[in-house]
């Protein structure tokens, strides 16, 4: 079940909440793909289309979209896909 979970985060190097989300996933021993919007500015539009808004971090756990640092929502999604 766990191997099917795809986790992606849209972030930037200055973004404080991005650090917390990434650190939390690492703390849980969970790997993720990171899209740094400073390095790949062309991905901003994709992020805005997927999340229907502009703020980061945007965390995508399979088809769950979590905007900002929201531990409970992240836990819920991770539990749903059997990751924690």
């Amino acid at each position: 079940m766990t191997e099917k979970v795809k986790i992606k985060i849209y972030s930037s190097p200055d973004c404080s909440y991005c650090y917390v989300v990434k650190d939390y996933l690492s703390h849980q021993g969970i790997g993720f793909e990171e899209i740094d919007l400073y390095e790949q500015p062309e991905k901003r539009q994709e992020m805005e289309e997927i999340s229907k808004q502009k703020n980061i971090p945007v965390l995508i756990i399979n088809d769950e979209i979590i905007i900002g640092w929201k531990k409970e929502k992240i836990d819920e999604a991770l539990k749903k896909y059997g990751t924690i």
Partner: protein
Amino acid sequence: MAQYDLIILGGGPAGITAGIYASRKKLKTLLITKEFLGQVGLSWRIENYPGFPKINGRDLLKLFHNHLVQNEITIQNYEEVIKIEKLKVGFKLKTKEKEYNSLAIIIATGAELKRLNIKNEERFIGKGISYCLTCDEKAFENKKVAVIGGGNTGAEAAISLLKFASEIYLLEYLDHLTCDEILKEEIENQSRIQIITNAEVLSFEGDGELKKIVYQERKTKKIHEIETAGCFIQIGVMPNTEFVKGFIDLNEKREIMSNLKTMETSHKGIFVAGDVCDFPFKQIVVAVGQGASAALSAYSYIKELNN
């Protein structure tokens, strides 16, 4: 259940300093925090912490954290404290996940950014409105942006936005900016920052995205609109005291009332430090000092209890 001498709540400057002092006194100490961030982690430009003429908050916090973990202390990161109960001796502390016992407690839970709670604020979060400058300022490259709040945080936000935004409006409710003089001078010398004082922001307007901010000029009562693609709300903070309401004395601002000599609260054995207490000046250097004071007072209290 694990029993500690001291439990510290909060991983900001106040809690971390308390942790360093307590562990050096060889108290069996646990530090519980929702995350290592706090307000300091949201600051993008700190210029008033001695020894660091210019540093961003996350870097400073990392240095604090590295110092903390060199000491003998147990840390529970990513846990939120929801309740404190008095026991015959000491206290029981509940987080969403677990329970812990200790002889003394230091509350250093800081504060959270305030919202305006006005029309359409919720609707445009992420669609122009943000509370986190470091996260979202780059989304407004070459656009007009507003900052609400003329204190230090708002003033620094306006200055930081000069990197990206084409034009910046800085709106302040009072008839003058309340930031430090040095920031005021910097802002007044920037032609791309327009200061609007006496502005009571009434609502945010737009369709799918934020387009306008509507405010009333408080003296003339005239309603004005400014066109803007973005807005950073920086109007101060609210203390994180919900979990002690009814248990510890709070003032009218919901800050924990403290004896500033000992940092003790209305509850014997519970101490407080940093922005969550009723001291009027909310600064890192103040939080750090109070963290040390609270830990030293807690040490004396525990020593007396054990004798």
